[in-house]
């Protein structure tokens, strides 16, 4: 496998009133070319900070250590100008809220061609015809008309499709989608994910989908990483992770999803995870999840678990491994 993106020991520390606090703590993962990978976790688990660190656009004062290599290039050591040449061209981002991510008073065509012309240096006419083709690709009806329209004239799902087209404008090799379906209706979510998956196949583009909804990932992502409090809890092939979760936190996330079958069988509708995720700077010693974990043992409060391989391409940061028997 040729890894397109290699993240090793990534740590992002943000300045807070009580000094620097780690939003991402010693995170490592790789993304192969043309693969779709999911990063899941609750709000505040460091998913978005991980994404922003790939772009070198972290909040002011943030400290990054570790290594982020894109096709062999170390991103953490690039200058602002070199980073700008990579953003959009090599890696692009689709953000959570398509309503806010598109400019309200610039025509769609301008937004699509702006980055295309900057990165690819194509003429205005060429950019416009490419833009129309892109809108066609993301299944926007009547692309010529859409180029002259404004963001407000489209529905939420359409806007997300347009936002994806804008991100694709300079033909990036890696697309990072930060909660791309959160702001959308359930019926539209599947369509967006299928679109991302099709773009991945057709363009050989790698996709990282960041989400808090494990169900969203089940159909499309090949591999899944579950983060908790800035650290990797569990990572592995999606089917294995969702079918036989080994980390109590992954299990908790799955139990917190609605299961109609369970209800019919007289089971609980949803099982919430007790407590709430730790805030920045309040991460407990030992395993960060132990105060909320039903399987917690005394050792969990003292030693910090490192992700170790437990099966083929399956990493687990839970030494007691209480769910091993279940799998």
């Amino acid at each position, binding site marked *: 496998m040729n890894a397109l993106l290699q993240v090793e020991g990534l740590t992002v520390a943000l300045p807070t009133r009580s000094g620097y606090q780690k939003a991402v703590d010693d995170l490592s993962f790789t993304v192969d070319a043309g693969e779709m990978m999911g990063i899941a976790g609750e709000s505040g688990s460091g998913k978005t900070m991980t994404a922003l660190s790939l*772009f070198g*656009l972290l909040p002011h004062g943030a400290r990054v250590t570790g290594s982020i290599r894109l096709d062999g290039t170390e991103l953490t050591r690039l200058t*602002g100008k070199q980073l*700008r*040449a*990579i*953003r*959009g*061209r090599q890696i*692009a*981002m689709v*953000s959570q*809220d398509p309503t*806010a*991510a*598109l*400019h*309200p*008073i*610039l025509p769609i065509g*301008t937004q699509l061609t*702006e*980055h295309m012309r*900057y*990165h690819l240096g194509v003429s205005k006419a060429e950019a416009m015809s490419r833009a129309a083709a892109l809108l066609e690709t993301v299944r926007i009806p009547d692309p010529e008309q859409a180029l002259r329209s404004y963001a407000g004239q489209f529905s939420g799902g359409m806007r997300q499709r347009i*936002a994806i087209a*804008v*991100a694709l*404008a*300079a033909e990036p090799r890696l697309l990072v989608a930060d909660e791309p379906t959160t702001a959308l209706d359930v019926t539209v979510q599947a369509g967006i994910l299928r679109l991302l998956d099709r773009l991945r196949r057709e363009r050989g583009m790698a996709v990282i989908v960041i989400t808090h909804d494990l169900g969203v990932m089940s159909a499309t992502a090949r591999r899944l990483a579950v983060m908790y409090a800035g650290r990797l809890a569990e990572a592995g092939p999606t089917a294995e992770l969702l079918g036989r979760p080994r980390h109590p936190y992954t299990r908790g996330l799955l139990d917190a999803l609605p299961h109609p079958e369970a209800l019919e069988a007289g089971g609980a509708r949803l099982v919430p995870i007790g407590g709430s995720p730790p805030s920045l700077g309040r991460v407990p010693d030992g395993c960060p999840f132990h105060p909320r974990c039903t399987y917690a043992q005394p050792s969990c409060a003292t030693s910090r678990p490192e992700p170790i391989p437990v099966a083929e391409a399956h990493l687990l940061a839970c030494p007691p491994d209480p769910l091993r028997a279940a799998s």
Partner: protein
Amino acid sequence: MRTPPWRRPLALAGLAVIGAWAVIAIFAPLVAPQNPLAQKFGILLGPSSAHWFGTDELGRDVFSRVLYGARITLPLAVILIVAAMIIGAVLGGIAGFFGGWVDNVLMRVADLVFAFPGIILALAVAAALGPQLRNAVIAVVVVSWPSYARLVRSLVLSARSAQYVVASRLLGSSGLRVLFTDIRPNAAGPVLVLAALDIGNAVLLLSGLSFLGLGAQPPTAEWGAMVAEGAQNFNDWWVGLFPGLAILTVVLAFNFIGDSLRDMLDPRTARAVRLR
């Protein structure tokens, strides 16, 4: 939601009045019955069929002088508002974009200007530069630019953290490119509205300086200066009344246009301007 311009009687009236004054300004030599500077008639004659607005203390035709006055006030008002707009927008953009000490210095200078009543500061600047029409224009620009700087700064600040700006940066835009492609279109509407509302103020301020002898100098036919002459001949009401009415109609018409523009383009921003 948006009422078209032709359904807004005040906007229409304002446009008609300004249009009429613009035509008068352009064709003054053809429209005016007399040379505005010719002192060849009886002094202080009341309005009559020969002199519709009477004559002043030097025997000049007040009607012709009022018409010629439009040639001074209208273009200067436009020039100075454009100058104030450009200076204010550039400084405000710099302040909002770079922040830090640049922002502090520029905004404290703006505060300094705001701390004075406009007319007093304009008086001081005009007096310091010397009584000349050109200096009066500079004085009005000095007083006017901070409103634009503040407006543009606040627009830049709010747009800078907007998601679409962040999205643009994530796709490789540099800071300056974001400022020009993504933020500038947002600022254009509110700035134009502010300019339309402010131009009436500017006309008043400029005429005020001339009235006080710091702007247009005799024998120039300028409305403010003419009102000042009228104030010295109080019994001959026509000398001051007609140029005064000219100022009134122009300011009122600009304000009508500005109000309607604000309602059409930007319901929220320019409200603060009216408080001044």
